[in-house]
């Protein structure tokens, strides 16, 4: 019995909790991608760098707040700085829309042109982030480190295995929960949200019913910029901030959006968790886990790891391809690109 409990704790500690946190971060990112896709109708390659851009401002403001001694211990100071980062991300999104995307929208350019344009925006943001904060890892987390500590958990339960819940992980899950609820409420109940859904569903009919397209687009960018900053900040607190990593997040985020059904907000959230848990479960070494469960003579000698952690991109990719081949609309019947 104790063996099973130990195995469960071990599994929660190394798979369940990290997977939940990572999945939440991907879900927030994928929500932004899916929203831009459903309103502006293109896959935004600059989203990873938008995340990096917003997070960079959060970091800069956090450092400034730390230097003048303002904080909300035990919570990380970055939460105080979050609104400023969101404002910066929204500002640059709106600027890029005004000076770049709007031209092509009015010309009714094909989606591929939008994607190439978003690559240009990606270069710009990528360069800006590296010029301003540099290409290296940045630390900006402070406050308490753990909600549950390994030692305390062991003492309280008397088990061999400890459970650790980092504050950043708890925060990620809680914030994602709140944000997703708020976003769904907005999309389902509010007037603007309904207008956005109508616009996404059928542009002509929405225009005919008096939906203001400029407003819809602006709101879409505001939400996408905010979500990107929140996702980026949570990822940075949980792991670390490095511009290149954020660029690379693009792939799992796209995978999440497509797996769930692109253009479908619920799908983006579910897709985020599907991709995250696939990555974590496939790259986890099950040796210790199995030792607790199987009789001694069956104990595995190898690590029992399906793929080494360096190949986690392959997991997102394989999911992506399988979904595209088997069910191109995704789990929740989104649009086909």
């Amino acid at each position, binding site marked *: 019995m104790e063996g099973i409990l130990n195995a469960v704790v071990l599994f929660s500690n190394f798979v369940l909790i990290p997977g939940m946190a990572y999945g939440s971060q991907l879900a927030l990112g994928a929500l932004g991608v899916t929203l831009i896709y459903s309103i502006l109708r*293109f*896959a935004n*390659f600059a989203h990873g760098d938008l995340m990096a851009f917003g997070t960079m401002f959060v970091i800069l403001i956090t450092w400034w707040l730390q230097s003048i001694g303002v904080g909300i211990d035990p919570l990380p100071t970055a939460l105080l700085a979050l609104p400023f980062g969101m404002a910066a991300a929204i500002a640059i999104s709106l600027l890029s829309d005004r000076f*770049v995307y709007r*031209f092509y929208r009015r010309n009714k350019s094909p*989606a*591929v*042109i939008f*994607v*190439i*344009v978003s*690559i*240009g*925006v*990606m*270069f*710009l*943001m*990528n*360069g*800006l982030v*590296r*010029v*301003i*904060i*540099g*290409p290296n890892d940045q630390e900006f987390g402070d406050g308490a480190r753990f909600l549950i500590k390994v030692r305390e958990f062991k003492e309280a339960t008397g088990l061999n295995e400890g459970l650790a819940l980092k504050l950043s992980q708890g925060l990620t899950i809680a914030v994602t929960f709140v944000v997703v609820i708020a976003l769904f409420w907005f999309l389902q109940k509010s007037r603007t949200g309904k207008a956005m859904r109508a616009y996404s569903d059928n542009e002509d009919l929405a225009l005919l019913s008096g939906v203001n397209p400029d407003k819809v687009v602006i709101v879409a960018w505001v939400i996408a910029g905010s979500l990107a900053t929140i996702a980026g900040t949570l990822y940075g607190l949980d792991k670390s901030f490095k511009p*290149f990593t954020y*660029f*690379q997040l*693009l*792939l799992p985020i*796209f*995978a999440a959006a*497509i797996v769930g059904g692109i253009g479908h907000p619920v799908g983006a959230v579910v897709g985020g968790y599907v991709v995250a848990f696939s990555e974590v479960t496939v790259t986890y070494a099950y040796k210790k886990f199995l030792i607790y469960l199987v009789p001694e003579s069956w104990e595995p000698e*190898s690590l029992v790891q399906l793929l*080494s952690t*360096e*190949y986690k*991109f*392959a997991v*997102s*990719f394989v999911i*992506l*391809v399988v979904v*595209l*081949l088997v069910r*191109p609309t995704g789990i929740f019947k989104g649009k*086909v*690109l």
Partner: protein
Amino acid sequence: MTSSMRGPICFAIMAVLLAIVGFGQSWSVALSILNLCLISSIMALGLNMQWGYAGLFNVGVMGFAALGGVAAVLVSMPPIQEAWAAGGWDMLWTLAMLVVTVLAVLSVRRLVPSGGLRIALTLLVLLCGYGLIRVFFDPAVDAIEAVNPAKTGYLGGLGLPILLAWPVGGLVAAGAAWLIAKIALGLRADYLAIATLGIAEIILAILKNEDWLARGVKNVSGLDRPVPYEVELQASAQFESWAHAIGMETLEASTILVKLCYAGLFLAVLVVIMVLAQKALHSPWGRMMRAIRDNEVSAEAMGKNVTRRHLEIFVIGAAVMGIAGAMLTTLDGQFTPGTYQPLRFTFLIWVMVIVGGSGNNWGAVLGGFFIWFIWIEAEPAGLWLMDFLTSGLSPESALRAHLLQGAAYMRLCVMGLILLLALRFSPRGLIPDPVRR
């Protein structure tokens, strides 16, 4: 300016720019830029075939270039006998198991009618195959990587001349492209982009982590060279007298001669590929390609096999990228998987094609020259600009030092701006693809 004069004028401007670098900085620098311009043009040509001829949105250029690079290692480095003795057989067994697994999966899919049973059987076969492969693969990797890990720790190559690696690099990339095309080419543009982006990352992940293949991030250096070494030239009395005859230092003359040799080789490859590309573009096949690009549905209605043509052009374009990748590794003299970055190896090539003129081979070549030139020269220019902008701050200011440090990344912004401006004001590029009637 008539459109027929545009190309020559643009190339003349490019030559003048390189000459300015030659006189202003040094000829050695100018030749280094020229060499990479040539390689970039070849990569841009490959991408132009996929995007410009056929409208295939490939964002995996980096992967094909890296495959070309690893081919240079596998062809030219001498084989490591101890490593082969230690793990060679197990590695061959792994390969055999891989082939058996693939064949088994294919035959299951052919023999069993589609449905739940087929999916279950396929998964079962895959799982068994995976287990069998790991049984041979794991000890093989351990044995190979244990052989003198500081210096080798990999299987080595074939020990052949490195010039052979260029076509081989093309073949390796083409093979990979064929596999990818089989899986991903049915997808629409945006999805193909995301899929190829992922594939490039996976290829790089494999090259970085499979140390037994090409030492991973430990790099393979000291690759064979197709041109003489500077030291040998300096040592030869004949070369010394020749250098003095044209009024140059021996040291400078030797580096310049080596770079000229590379430039000659690269130019030869570029000319060959360019001639073939132009011939293909103006052949009935090229016309069919453009017809498919401009209107897929009507081309299909005319009985053209769109999927087949897309597969062909994807493979051919990837082969050209692979050749360029092998050439790049040859020029560097080492294979460093850690330096492959999507911005530099994928998206920069995209900027080249878009700015040069998608669909036009001359445009792609010009774009390769022009964008690479800016990419290199934007670094000192960015530094200078930042120095100027921050000159109001005190020299000890930490902010100024930080900004100066980051100034090199200004070139990413410059590239973004160029791409956006080109798309907005000259969407058909510097040398547009002529509208044929």
